[in-house]
């Protein structure tokens, strides 16, 4: 047993900032509320913050949503442990992400604005006239989100561990701070909805920028410049691991790693905006162009992430020892430990608080997004078709609590690696909804049942492939997310190979079903819907005016 001493100064700063953020979360319920909306009684108000966030709030919200605590912990951890391929791919990933969302997300925004869609599954249902396809998208979204929330808890746990909280003596006491933090989070998400993480994201992002900028300037000076830092990293990653007979990691990827590198970046970039929490932040924005403007300014976060990744190499040079409570080496503790070792306690407190708060923002948005999906695409579509907006909001609020409790149980009851494996699978699964959602934004060519079949094939193939990746040291399954394409030795991200298979199946089956003249389902959208802006009328409004102008109807000027 390795009992750490509690670092009181840092701990007090973390607790203080946590309290500030919690107060903000509760106050957020009153933020940007128009007079007629009382109590956030609809999904638009509770689940999408009133659909009114402008460019800057969306920037903070998306930044807080996509660059999560787990990212801050796991990316430098991967750099520290295995180097460029599993760590630095995050940089090209977040570079190619923004041109992709520039292209597709404004169309999703427009059609959702026009029809009042709250989730991407809403859109799929409306486009293909198929609640089963919509259900597939929703279930994939919810299942992929749960371990993602759990990983945010892993991020908080890393901070609490280096602060010295939680000795492994008493299970309940170990996890008490974590449970406490999550209960508070659940409470303000329940009362304030998406407004809470939007407001907190501003604080969190400013703290993170502060911590990373200071660390990236100060630490290289302290450790003799980037030259010696990269030298230390090159030496460590080049050392041959006796267990595998291979180098410990990759310093600069060689030719054999190219396909893994680009496919990890591309697959992750395509998958990220299929996650419900990303779509929620997009649909909460005010105008069609808000997301496009954000595609141009969000890369600032990618720059920050790139330097944060390099802190993993700084930790190699600094000789950081990320020892977990049970005495084992846990790479996830590298960055929190680095801050604690080399900065005054008060500044380390700020940096650690930034990471911990960085877990709360995405956890809140993810639980809201998953709850919206449940409410709209399972509860409304399959249980109570005539549900009114007020009940929808009520159901969503309760489900957001259930989702959070589920994630908490996941992290406390199961091994941490279970959450990481599930998250790995989640990334593979969520990409399989890409054909239904994104192709649907451009064309109705695909058949709904073909898309459903492609989705099922992609998920099955991806799951089996991921299971068959065996860690060479521990011999455990789910040893990584890269595998050779069957029949070749060309290694790519499994999500990408599953996606290609999915697309091929969907296309072939579409041709077959078309030849068999299977009914196509009703498309509720029109070409004009995909270009609508905030000032263009919504479908309900158009229907209202049409009612008044019908021959023999009441006069349009009442």
């Amino acid at each position: 047993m390795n009992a750490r001493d509690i670092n009181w100064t840092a701990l007090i700063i973390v607790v203080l900032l946590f309290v500030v953020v919690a107060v903000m979360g509760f106050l957020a319920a009153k933020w940007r509320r128009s007079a007629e909306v009382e109590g956030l009684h609809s999904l638009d108000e509770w689940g999408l913050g009133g659909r009114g966030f402008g460019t800057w709030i969306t920037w903070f919200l998306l930044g807080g949503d996509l660059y999560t605590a787990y990212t801050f912990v796991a990316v430098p951890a991967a750099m520290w442990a295995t180097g460029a391929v599993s760590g630095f791919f995050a940089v090209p990933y977040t570079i190619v992400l923004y041109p992709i969302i520039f292209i597709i997300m404004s169309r999703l925004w427009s059609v959702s604005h026009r029809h009042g869609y709250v989730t991407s599954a809403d859109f799929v249902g409306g486009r293909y006239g198929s609640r089963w396809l919509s259900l597939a998208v929703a279930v994939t979204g919810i299942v992929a989100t749960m371990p993602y929330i759990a990983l945010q808890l892993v991020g908080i746990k890393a901070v609490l561990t280096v602060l010295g909280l939680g000795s492994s003596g008493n299970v309940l006491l170990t996890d008490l701070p974590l449970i406490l933090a999550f209960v508070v989070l659940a409470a303000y998400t329940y009362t304030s909805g998406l407004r809470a993480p939007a407001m907190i994201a501003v604080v969190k992002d400013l703290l993170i920028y502060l911590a990373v900028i200071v660390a990236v300037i100060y630490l290289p000076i302290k450790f003799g410049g980037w030259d010696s830092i990269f030298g230390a990293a090159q030496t460590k990653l080049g050392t041959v691991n006796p267990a595998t007979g291979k180098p410990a990691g990759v310093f600069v990827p060689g030719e054999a790693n190219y396909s893994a590198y680009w496919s990890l970046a591309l697959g992750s970039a395509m998958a990220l905006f299929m996650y419900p929490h990303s779509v929620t932040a997009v649909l909460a924005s005010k105008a069609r162009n808000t997301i496009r403007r954000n595609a141009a300014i969000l890369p600032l976060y990618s720059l920050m992430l790139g330097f944060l990744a390099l802190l993993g190499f700084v930790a190699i040079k600094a000789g950081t020892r990320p020892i977990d409570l049970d005495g084992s080496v846990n790479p996830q503790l590298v960055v929190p430990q680095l801050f604690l070792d080399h900065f005054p306690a008060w500044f380390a407190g700020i940096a650690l608080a930034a990471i911990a708060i960085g877990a709360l923002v995405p956890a809140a948005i993810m639980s809201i997004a998953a709850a919206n999906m449940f409410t709209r695409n399972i509860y409304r579509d399959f249980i109570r078709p005539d549900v009114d907006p007020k009940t929808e909001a009520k159901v969503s609020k309760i489900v957001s609590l259930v989702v959070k409790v589920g994630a908490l149980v996941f992290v406390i009851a199961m091994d941490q690696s279970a959450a990481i494996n599930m998250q790995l699978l989640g990334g593979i699964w969520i990409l399989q909804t890409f054909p239904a959602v994104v192709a649907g934004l451009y064309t109705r060519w695909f058949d709904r049942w073909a898309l459903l079949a492609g989705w099922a094939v992609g998920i099955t193939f991806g799951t089996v492939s991921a299971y068959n990746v065996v860690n060479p040291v521990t011999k455990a399954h789910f040893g990584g997310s890269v595998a050779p394409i069957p029949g070749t030795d060309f290694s790519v991200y499994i999500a990408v190979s599953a996606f290609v298979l999915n697309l091929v199946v969907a296309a072939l089956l579409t041709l077959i079903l078309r030849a068999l003249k299977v009914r196509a389902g009703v498309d509720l959208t029109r070409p004009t819907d995909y270009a609508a802006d905030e000032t263009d009328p919504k479908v309900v409004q158009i229907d209202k005016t049409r009612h008044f102008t019908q021959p023999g109807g009441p006069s349009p000027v009442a």
Partner: protein
Amino acid sequence: MSHADGYSPKDPTSPGEPRRLTRDTPIRGPARPAPYLGAGILLAAAILIPLLPQLYSFDAPRLGGMPFFYWYQLLWVPISAILTSSAYWLVTREDRRRRAEARAGGPPRAGTGSAGSGFGGDRP
């Protein structure tokens, strides 16, 4: 801020005239291909070039001790932002033109490109 599209949601129909708004009322005039082609090339470059490690997976030349592989990719973050901003400028300008064209009265009564105040209290 809210109307970066450059037009104000003024109601072009004269008061009292019945509104013939349908789901298929065009909200934009026909597109010119050039701006979309230009934006497409910029965005394709921003997506494809960072995905070619063949172009940058080298140690030398180092910059301030940082291998080429690392500083080149960090450099691509602002380059990509510039490409995306240029695409935004191209597309938005064309979009504005097309909406103006639809409002100015394209094919039958396209004067309804904007909701106007008559449609009741939506968030501004």
